[in-house]
């Protein structure tokens, strides 16, 4: 494999604490090393910004739910489908792009890893088929557990060991990465036409509360010592007044310490916090609760969060939070898709237009930015759009421009039709903070890598780490103050190295790289009880045979298995 030396760039690397100093980066055999020989190819990064490849901590980019969105929204693709010259295939779709476009666009933005945020275990094969077809970027997927019948039954009696054994079994069957929990209990209640809007609402039939599910899953996750923590989409998403439920849920992690060998410090990752930080009692007196929520997050060191920034676009909402999608359909009357996944989970999809002329949507935009701007520790707060729920990930450069330039976000804020209402309902106008390039590297590189337990190889530019490097046409000494210029600079990397290979050059995809699928193989003590329960449930309830359930290796031929030993003496 060829050698490279990236010369004269302004390097931003939180792993080594480098804040824009000029430093040469040497690359050999897919890794960053201290020195290369004189024959190495020189990449001139003068007046450019050099960072590690970015990591996406939460996006819906592969699987049955995303694909259902694609086929039921042909109109999303019709006006945004093109073939660029070169080796790329046709790129279709705006909020629900094809797998090919997903890979290309992430690479053009400087990303080298993406986490599929919700994998229904029963349909894991479909998730892996799409992950396999997504070029360039490494990916992993989080199976959903928060409404799984096994989990509900075990945690009702607080059987953490059995829960952990079942999680380990599912991760191996589905080639999953960690523990995702969506609207704990609420999605199961949806099968009865109900929901769980606080963490103390009992789940019908199972007689367990969301609080018990959340706490139990955190404990099981730490029992196993998985690379990533429990990843939570909380109850009561998107409703005024939900910030109290949000803080109540976060409190459940108090006193629990991270147990793992991956350098991860948090025990709970709370996703798309924007949707969970609302005050008020209805959409009329709706206010931002970002300050209250972030005050708590800032104090509590064992939490990480991501933002879920609304980008003010037409998009497609999709989540395993079935009841919420029905609620959304009732608000906008657009087409609604709903599916139940047997014993495991459910999903819903509704197209959504975040119209900037609407005071509520404009306020949601403000709340998302507030979350990031209130974050005291950028290593624990990551930027997402919960793609595609709050907006497509292709809008990250615009989100960065709002966060990095007070002028840019104030222009947007004051040009809203109902600007006065938005300004009085949120605190954004009072915030002067501008995220720096170093903080951006923390929020998009080092932070998410640590949170996902991948900090050994990802998120930094130290010797020995993966040669995943993004070089942007940004001179930090002359950082643009103009929003569109910031956006342009982040939208197309000058270079993207993936495992030491140039995959994007001048915004153009030139190599498909060697993408890998990451999954976690956790070894646990033999558990006869759990194996018996699995056999019984398959015989009695599942529509498939137990032998047809696992994802065969052929579905993830380029797999990278992270081994975890959770056997106890």
């Amino acid at each position, binding site marked *: 494999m060829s050698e490279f030396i990236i010369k004269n760039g302004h390097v931003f690397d939180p792993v080594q604490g480098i804040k824009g100093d000029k430093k040469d980066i040497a690359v050999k055999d897919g890794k960053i090393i201290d020195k290369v020989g004189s024959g190495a190819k020189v990449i001139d990064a003068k007046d450019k910004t050099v960072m590690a490849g970015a990591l996406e901590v939460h996006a819906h980019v592969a699987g049955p739910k995303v694909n259902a969105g694609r086929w*039921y*929204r*042909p*109109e*999303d693709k*019709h006006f945004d489908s093109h*073939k660029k010259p070169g080796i790329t295939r*046709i790129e279709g779709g705006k909020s629900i792009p094809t797998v090919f476009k997903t890979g290309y666009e992430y690479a053009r933005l400087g990303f080298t890893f993406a986490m599929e945020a919700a994998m229904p275990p029963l349909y894991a094969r479909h998730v892996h088929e799409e992950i396999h077809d997504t070029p360039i970027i490494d990916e992993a997927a989080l199976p959903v557990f928060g409404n799984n019948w096994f989990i509900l039954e075990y945690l009702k009696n607080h059987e953490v060991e059995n829960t952990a054994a079942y999680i380990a079994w599912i991760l191996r069957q589905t080639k999953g990465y960690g523990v995702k929990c969506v609207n704990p209990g609420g999605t199961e209640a949806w099968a009865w036409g109900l929901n769980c809007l606080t963490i103390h609402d009992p789940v019908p039939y199972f007689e367990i509360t969301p609080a018990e599910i959340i706490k139990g899953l955190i404990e099981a996750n730490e029992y196993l010592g998985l690379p990533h923590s429990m990843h939570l989409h909380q109850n009561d998403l998107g409703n005024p007044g939900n910030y109290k439920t949000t803080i109540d849920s976060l409190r459940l992690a108090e006193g629990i310490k991270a147990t793992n060998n991956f350098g991860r410090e948090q025990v709970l990752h709370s996703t798309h916090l924007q949707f969970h930080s609302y005050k008020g009692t209805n959409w009329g007196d709706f206010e931002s609760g970002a300050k209250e929520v972030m005050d708590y997050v800032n104090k509590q060191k064992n939490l990480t969060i991501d933002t879920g920034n609304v980008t003010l676009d037409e998009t497609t909402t999709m989540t395993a939070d079935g009841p919420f999608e029905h609620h959304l359909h009732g608000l906008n009357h*657009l*087409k609604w898709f709903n599916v139940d996944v047997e014993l495991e989970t459910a999903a819903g999809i509704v197209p959504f237009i975040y119209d900037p002329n609407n005071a509520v949507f404009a306020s949601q935009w403000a709340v998302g930015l507030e979350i990031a701007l209130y974050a005291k520790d950028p290593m624990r707060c990551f930027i997402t759009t919960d793609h595609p729920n709050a907006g497509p990930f292709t809008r990250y450069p615009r989100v960065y421009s709002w966060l990095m330039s007070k002028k840019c976000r104030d222009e947007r804020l004051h040009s809203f039709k109902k600007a006065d209402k938005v300004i009085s309902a949120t605190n954004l106008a009072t915030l002067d903070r501008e995220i720096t390039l170093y903080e951006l590297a923390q929020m998009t590189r080092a932070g998410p890598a640590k949170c996902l337990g991948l900090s050994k190889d990802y998120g930094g530019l130290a010797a020995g780490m993966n040669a995943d490097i993004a070089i942007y046409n940004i001179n930090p000494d002359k950082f643009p103050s103009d929003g569109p210029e910031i956006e342009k600079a982040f939208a197309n990397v000058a270079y993207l190295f993936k495992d030491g290979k140039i995959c994007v050059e001048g915004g153009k995809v030139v190599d498909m790289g060697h993408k890998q699928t990451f999954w976690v193989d956790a070894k646990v003590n033999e558990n006869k009880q759990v194996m018996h329960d699995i056999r019984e449930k398959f015989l009695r309830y599942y529509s498939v045979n137990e032998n047809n359930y696992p994802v065969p290796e052929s579905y993830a031929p380029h797999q990278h298995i992270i081994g975890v030993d959770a056997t106890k003496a």
Partner: protein
Amino acid sequence: MNTVTLTVKKQPELYLECENVNPDAFAGKKADDIAKLGAYQGKEMSTVGDYFTITGEAGATAADTKIIVNGDCTKMKYLGAKMTAGEMIVNSACDMYTGSWMKGGKLTINGDVHSFCGLALAGGEFTINGNAGNYLGAAYRGDWRGMSGGVLRVKGNAGSDVASFMTGGEMIIGGDVDIHLGTHMEGGKIILKGNANRRVGGQLVKGEIYVFGKINVMMPGYKPVGEVDLEVDGTKATFVEYIGDLGERHPKRKGEVVYGKLFMKK
């Protein structure tokens, strides 16, 4: 107003996507520049000049440009699509998406058009001096935003699913239509001079449909409320007025429920 004349010189092997054949794309261009405009055939990009002989030159703006297309266009899609001003006359039958997403200007087709023409028409005048296929003036597949303005006139018959999701504008059909006329309508006006097959105004929330001929099978969600004398597109007659679709949600104005209306000529 300057006139550009296009004459088909070669038939595409597949179908030619003429997204760049409209007054907006031509504006400010001479024949040579127009010839260089792109046109997809399948995934291969070719040019307008590969398939048409071009004479004349366009005006400075779309509004100053008139386009005349001669020759067989039955394998040409998107003619006049997305035009905002100016005038265009096609002396042939055309394929899909003709006049779709039009915002203004005048488009006349002297022949038949295939399905999915005049989709989501927002303004201007679109006249078809022939028959139209299915989904005339409807929303794009999957979309919920149909025809919202302008005037769409068909001399002959149209197919099924005409004017789905219409929210505004006016559509006049000289002949007959098949099933599903004005499904999901939330505004606008349809005048049908001939007969309709079944399911006229299904799930209609708001808007008006005038039928001069017969409806083969009436929707059960419509209720007769009386008779009215009207002048519709130059014809004076007595119409039986129905309200509906009673199975749908309906908006309220000043405390009164606003129903969609269906008028059947006596």
